[in-house]
């Protein structure tokens, strides 16, 4: 009898590899999910409220009602992701129980634990986690994350933090590749990561799992910018369904991610998209209302 293995790190991280070069879109109901699928999204993130509304509403942001998520799962054939609060392993258990394809342990929701993240190795379902730099990314991977996304600053439509975080990751990897081997132990201690993961990153010259950009992407040019900076794909949260013409904008961003190195195509797909989401400059947000610094 042949051994059949499920829930391995290979099938978890392998799923993220299938999403590469794609756009994952935030949706709040089945109708939006179908629009996203039609626009060419590789997956949808099922939410009760998009980050821009979470930011505006304030209060405690929790896991979405499983009935809403299930309704979205039933409406599309592409993978469906959902968010749990940082450290809230029971929300993660609930999401796994309804058969979600990917869990985002997300700083966009109010953290449930300010010290520990979910021990993601215990789950059959894969997790994606946010990072602002390489140390944060490798700490999440050692906890079992099978995919990483830069945090950016969700719900702003301001790409500046996503750029900052992607550059920080890429700079750290370049630095690592030029570092003599005898300095790696100290670097591992400085980043608070294992020497093994650090060495693997140095040898491969990239993050050990797929790394998407997120948090502030609102236009095709934003998406292509993140791809040219080294992202494997892009999450678009509020940027699509808070804009004037979500179907058209979603379709344009999907094309921009495929043809991110072709300015002529980028120019074509950027035309006549209607109103983008109304942004908030990250600079204008009080420090204590920023989402990215939560639980590092």
């Amino acid at each position, binding site marked *: 009898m*042949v051994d*059949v293995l499920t829930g391995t790190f290979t099938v978890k991280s392998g*799923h993220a*590899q299938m999403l*590469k070069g*794609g756009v994952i879109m935030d949706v709040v109901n089945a109708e939006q999910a179908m629009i996203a699928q039609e626009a060419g999204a*590789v997956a949808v993130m099922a939410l009760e409220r998009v980050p821009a509304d979470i930011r505006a509403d304030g209060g405690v942001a929790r896991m979405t009602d499983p009935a809403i998520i299930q309704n979205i799962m039933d409406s599309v054939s592409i993978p469906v992701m959902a968010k749990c609060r940082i450290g809230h392993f029971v929300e993660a258990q609930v999401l796994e129980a309804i058969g979600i394809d990917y869990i985002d342990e997300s700083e966009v929701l109010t953290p449930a634990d300010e010290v520990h993240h979910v021990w993601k190795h215990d789950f059959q379902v894969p997790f994606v986690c946010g990072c602002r730099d390489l140390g944060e990314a490798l700490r999440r991977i050692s906890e079992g994350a099978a995919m990483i996304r830069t945090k950016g600053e969700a719900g702003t439509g301001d790409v500046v933090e996503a750029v900052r975080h992607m550059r920080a990751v890429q700079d750290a990897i370049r630095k690592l590749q030029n570092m003599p081997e005898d300095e790696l132990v100290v670097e591992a201690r400085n980043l608070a990561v294992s020497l093994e993961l650090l060495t693997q990153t140095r040898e491969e010259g990239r993050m050990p799992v797929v790394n998407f950009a997120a948090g502030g992407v609102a236009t095709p040019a934003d998406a292509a910018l993140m791809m040219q900076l080294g992202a494997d794909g892009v999450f678009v949260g509020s940027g699509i369904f808070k804009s004037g013409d979500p179907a058209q904008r979603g379709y344009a961003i999907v094309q921009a991610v495929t043809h991110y190195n072709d300015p002529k195509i980028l120019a074509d797909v950027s035309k006549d998209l209607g109103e983008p989401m109304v942004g908030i400059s990250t600079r204008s947000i009080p420090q204590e209302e920023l989402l990215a610094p939560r639980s590092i």
Partner: protein
Amino acid sequence: MRIGVLAVQGDFAEHIAILRRLNVDCLEVRLPEQLDDVSGLIIPGGESTTLSRLMSIYNLREPVQDMARAGKAVWGTCAGMIMLAHEITEADPVPLQLMDIGVRRNAFGRQIDSFEQELDIAGLDSRPFHAIFIRAPVVMRVGDKVKTLATLADGQAVAVRQGNLMATAFHPELTRDTRLHQYFLDLAAAPAGGAGRGS
């Protein structure tokens, strides 16, 4: 010999990494004119609805159908298998109808049902192949001219070949095993046979 890898979405970089290890010249294909000077094409794993949309927008369908019918080798892995099928069990996406197979998407369930196992593959040496199935499709109908290369324990076909065309429901590009890529390169190097001419 140059091999193209369809790079509109999916794990094309993983295929290219294996081809480079085999010292093969390769090209990322995003636009139809890039197909002119390749001897074979790999359609990678990815999201089949997305691949299908992007192939339509950039007019890639007909050139891929033409090259397959002209006898050039084409290999689809997972989403690529779905694209090569004659028919699929859902209305969406629209396949290229190049191989005489019927395919079911997400045949094993959702992501938590994704799995890996050893597989015996006809045409390779006797060592089993480590096969990784991610939200994988399965071949429901195998046409007369199609040869089944591998099945699961329950008999479902997961690797098939029809002349110059091949399809696998799993992802050799996620392993270190180059044997199926070598098998495909041998197909691409063989004299043109034309789709459906048998093996």
